[in-house]
């Protein structure tokens, strides 16, 4: 996916964290925000490319966009 103009409610920077750190950071943040809020997760762990969409689907949250940057990805996840 390409660049988005989504304004996240919160951003979680999990760059440098090993698996499952980025997914757990996202889950932790989703816990604390209101339904409808958008959390942006920054991760440079390739595993996040599968982990994040799989978890979001299980939990009923929506991955609005995945933005690729030079050395990391930004996942925009909306809390159901």
């Amino acid at each position: 996916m390409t660049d988005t103009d989504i304004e996240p409610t919160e951003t979680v920077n999990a760059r440098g964290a090993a698996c499952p750190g980025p997914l757990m950071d996202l889950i932790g943040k989703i816990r604390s925000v209101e339904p409808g809020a958008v959390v942006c997760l920054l991760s440079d762990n390739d595993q996040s490319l599968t982990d994040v969409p799989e978890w979001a689907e299980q939990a009923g949250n929506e991955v609005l966009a995945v933005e690729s940057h030079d050395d990391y990805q930004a996942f925009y996840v909306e809390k159901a």
Partner: protein
Amino acid sequence: MTERVVIVGGGTGGTVLANNLAGRLDREIDAGDVEITLINDGPDHVYKPVWLYVPFGQRELENGRRPLEELLDSRVTLRIDRITDIDADAQRLRSRNPGRPIEYDYLVLATGSTLAPEEIPGLAEAGHDYYSESGATALRDELLSFTEGHLVLSVVGTPHMCPAAPLEFVFMADDWFRERGLREDVDITYTYPIQRVHGNPHIAEWARPLMDERDIRVETFFNAEEIDADENVVRSMEGTDLEYDLLVGIPPHRGIDLIEEAGLGDRGWVDVNKHTLEAEAAENVYALGDTANTGVPNAGSVAHYQAGVVSQRLASEIRGQPPTAVYDGKTLCFIETGMDAASFVEFDYENPPSPARPSQKLHWSKLAYNESYWLTARGLL
């Protein structure tokens, strides 16, 4: 001028460091050039791995407690006090005792983990744990009289202390109920927040077939959202409801608040360079053990290895030499797989774990380690 090293936290990391450093800098201390102070908020050193055995009636809390006074090198000044404020710019600490602030030239934070069950509604009231002294004894009382029903062990958040301990608990419970002829009447379910049974894929791959063989049910992608204590149900963020008769929850963990207040890292974990263990946001500050955010497990073995590295680095700095010791991520863990068998893993930043085949010998090695731990704390092993 005397160089003042202040270590906050007299658990595994802080105690091993204080003793190791006192041995390394004995001449400088005797000459009055270096002063090492260890500050802990209680008089005892607590060895938490003992708590795993308490619910099964195999160990007592006293087996995991000794006065710090007995364990510390006599060249270390022990201060029983609770630090309440860190001013890293002024290199000064405040404690709950009013009076003069505590000044340092080098600070090491080894304040460990704290439990935060209040983050999940209902968990504190309905859940049991063996991650605290009071939790371990209350769970023992429940387990001893538990003869039928559904035992749920839920890992509510990561990171938590000793990532192997939840697996160990269900393996031990399975075996313990079997030995007592009760296993047919007790269902066991293990839940984990991500899509496998452990954060490390190699350990997860090893553990999953063992759980299947032993009829330990598994719910993955399960993040407890609330506990309904009236209905005995755990509700997950993923929409699964799990009924329990006895709930053992591994509560969310945090570091201590003042670390966040001092701007050293989120949720009380200090952001550090994962090789040098130096704080990212402050000069002359190190962190080690659970409180250092390195991505490796929160384990005593990690705190122990990191203490060796920080000790060497501090000694070099104090002697005006460039510090060269680095932490390579080394972690070592025995994993109980029943009441008389255990596995063993060893890994680091580069090399993944490869769990050993469970054996009785490894189980005895774990128990022997637990006994000899007091020599480790003294800096002798």
